[in-house]
């Protein structure tokens, strides 16, 4: 191929132009956000790519207000392995100049990444993990926990179930940090309300697919309520099999997302009660947000984790606007301090605050899954049963055991 002089000149000119743009872009500091979650395993639908998309959505919407900086979002897969997660977190913070790590579901991985963030005084906003230790024993001045935790789930779903007469429980529990903590927190609400726990079957995670044996034990215990302290596919299988074996107990799925309801189908899931802090059809704001992101993730509508990624990013950018990019890049606690100092406000969670220990305070909603006849269309799954106001939904500040909170 012959290269014409004109084409050559044109290319050179174009190249020169690109270089200048980059140079100009580089003159502004870049705030780098790393979204870290399960991109390929069992929690891919509850977080996954949709978390990344919702984070980007917040960045795009806030772009015009960024005060002297630009934002870059990168995405990584921790494969639900604490060592992989912690390794990637180190690399991101140390080598790749990441200023904030977002999402990180799977409690065991979350605690590992939180440890790295604490050690390096870097910002970590956890959305996807349930462990309440992130604002308790494992808390740090550079960590925020958003959307949900085991305490809030136990209080909303557990508390409401006991109140409705479910005073004797049997647990089927995923035998690792998350399941154990959820069972412990739920147990304390059940016993506080004068209910009884008659037994529990802690099963090996993640290798269990058949729950019939545990369901039969639950049935045999004579308890009125079956508490499922597991998540994702395990919850889906437990509920399906409970129906198959004609279990005549009330099921309390302690952690369940709208994506799980979608997987079960309304036929099986109808009547279940579960807790989320976000539902796409809750109000004007949530619907507007969902309509904006839906085209980018059409098969996986946002749940409280996805919404949390959006809202937390938005709030963090507001905080950076307040302190300036230099202070933000200097330390994670600068960002988090600023986040705590201004109230939150967004389409997904409305108005709220971030408490001293890093807990983002919003109301929690107890939903009941609709009957197939009540559902008007795609993803129309929930009706609201109860709302716990922000001030009561979360573990009291002095009970968490966070080291920098003075009782």
């Amino acid at each position, binding site marked *: 191929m012959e290269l014409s002089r004109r084409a050559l000149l044109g290319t050179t000119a174009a190249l020169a132009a690109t270089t200048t743009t980059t140079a100009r872009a580089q003159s502004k500091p870049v705030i780098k956000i790393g979204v870290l979650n399960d991109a*390929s*395993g*069992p*929690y*891919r*639908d*509850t977080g*996954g790519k949709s978390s990344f998309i919702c984070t980007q959505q917040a960045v795009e919407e806030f772009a015009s207000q960024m005060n002297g900086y630009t934002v870059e979002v990168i995405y990584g897969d921790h494969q639900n392995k604490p060592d992989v997660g912690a390794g990637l977190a180190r690399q991101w913070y140390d080598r790749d100049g990441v200023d904030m790590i977002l999402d990180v579901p799977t409690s065991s991985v979350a605690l590992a990444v939180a440890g790295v963030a604490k050690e390096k005084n870097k910002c970590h906003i956890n959305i996807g993990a349930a462990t309440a230790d992130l604002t308790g024993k494992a808390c740090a001045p550079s960590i925020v926990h958003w959307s949900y935790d085991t305490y809030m789930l136990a209080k909303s779903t557990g508390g409401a179930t006991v109140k409705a007469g479910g005073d004797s429980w049997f647990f089927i529990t995923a*035998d690792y940090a998350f399941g154990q903590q959820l069972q412990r927190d739920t147990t304390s609400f059940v016993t506080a309300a004068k209910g009884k726990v008659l037994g529990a*079957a*802690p*099963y*090996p995670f*993640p*290798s*269990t*697919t*058949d729950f*019939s*044996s*545990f369901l*039969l*034990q639950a049935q*045999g215990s004579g308890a009125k309520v079956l508490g499922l302290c597991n998540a*994702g*596919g395990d919850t*889906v*299988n437990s509920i*399906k*099999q409970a129906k*198959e*074996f*004609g279990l005549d107990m009330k099921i309390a799925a302690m952690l369940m997302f709208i*994506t*799980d309801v*979608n*997987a*079960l*189908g309304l*036929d*099986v899931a109808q009547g279940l009660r579960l807790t989320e802090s976000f539902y796409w059809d809750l109000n004007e704001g949530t619907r507007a947000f969902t309509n904006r992101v839906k085209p980018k993730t059409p*098969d*996986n509508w946002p749940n409280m984790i996805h919404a949390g990624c959006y809202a937390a990013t938005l709030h963090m950018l507001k905080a950076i606007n307040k302190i300036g990019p230099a202070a933000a890049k200097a330390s994670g606690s600068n960002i988090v301090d600023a986040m705590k100092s201004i109230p939150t406000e967004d389409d997904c969670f409305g108005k709220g605050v971030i408490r001293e220990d890093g807990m983002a305070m919003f109301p929690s909603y107890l939903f009941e899954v609709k009957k197939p006849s009540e559902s008007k269309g795609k993803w129309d799954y929930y009706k609201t049963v109860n709302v716990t106001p922000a001030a009561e939904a979360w573990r009291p500040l002095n009970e968490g055991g966070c080291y920098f909170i003075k009782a």
Partner: protein
Amino acid sequence: MLSILGYNAGPLLAQSILGLINGAFYALLSLGLAVIFGLLNIINFAHGALYMLGAVVAWVLLNHLSLGYWPSLLLAPLIVGAFGVILERTMISKLYKLDHLYGLLLTFGIALIVEGLARNEFGSSGMSYAVPESLRGATKLGFMIMPTYRLWVVVASFVMCITTWFVLEKTSLGATLRAATENAALVQAFGVNVPRLVTLTYGAGVALAALAGVMAAPVYSVNPGMGSNVIIVVFAVVVIGGMGSILGSILTGFGLGLLEGFTKFLYPQGSGVVVFVLMVIVLLTRPAGLFGKAT
């Protein structure tokens, strides 16, 4: 209530029945593995992924072509079996002369790719597959409720296992197959197309995995990860039964299902490891497995 030595035997009986149901899946899956290993000497790590593929194909047939459970029971194994034939012809057949390890690595890689693609296409939450109309409902047995579908799984799996065993051990086709693995050159000299025989055997082993997948679809949700959960246990079944022993894997499959069932009842935390503890004991005392022939 039933009682044995003064204990209430109801729960124990219920758990053993549940164990048998899981055992039925183990038997069916390990059967395919044993056929492939016994006759081809390939450690087929892709077996779990192909089992998953069986379930996924059944789901696709139902949701995109409105073909229900019964046609799927035939079609899904055929489709996945054909996929297996392609795999064998294009890749696995190149490795017969090499060490077992190469086949293991290749099939493991295939499993990861197949699972990754499925996850990309269908997500990880799982897709529901309803129990067919004719097998809905449950029978009250006094000590437990037995879903009709699960009863069907046990019976169907048992029939499938016996048929496979019969074909391989008692028919002339089976005799030819076994002869071909002993001495391929000699059998070829008798005018038997050995490579084709081997290909079809692999296809049949894969079809058995897919059949198990279709049967599992209504019980567990159809999920790209469903194969990797079960494959390790199934390998343990094959090892305990004796690598390549057909009868061994059938009996061990049902037996381990029972053992796991009891463990879930007595000490649930241990149910994930009990199979492997047994595997270690068997390997230490009878390295060729319970039913294998020492070489």
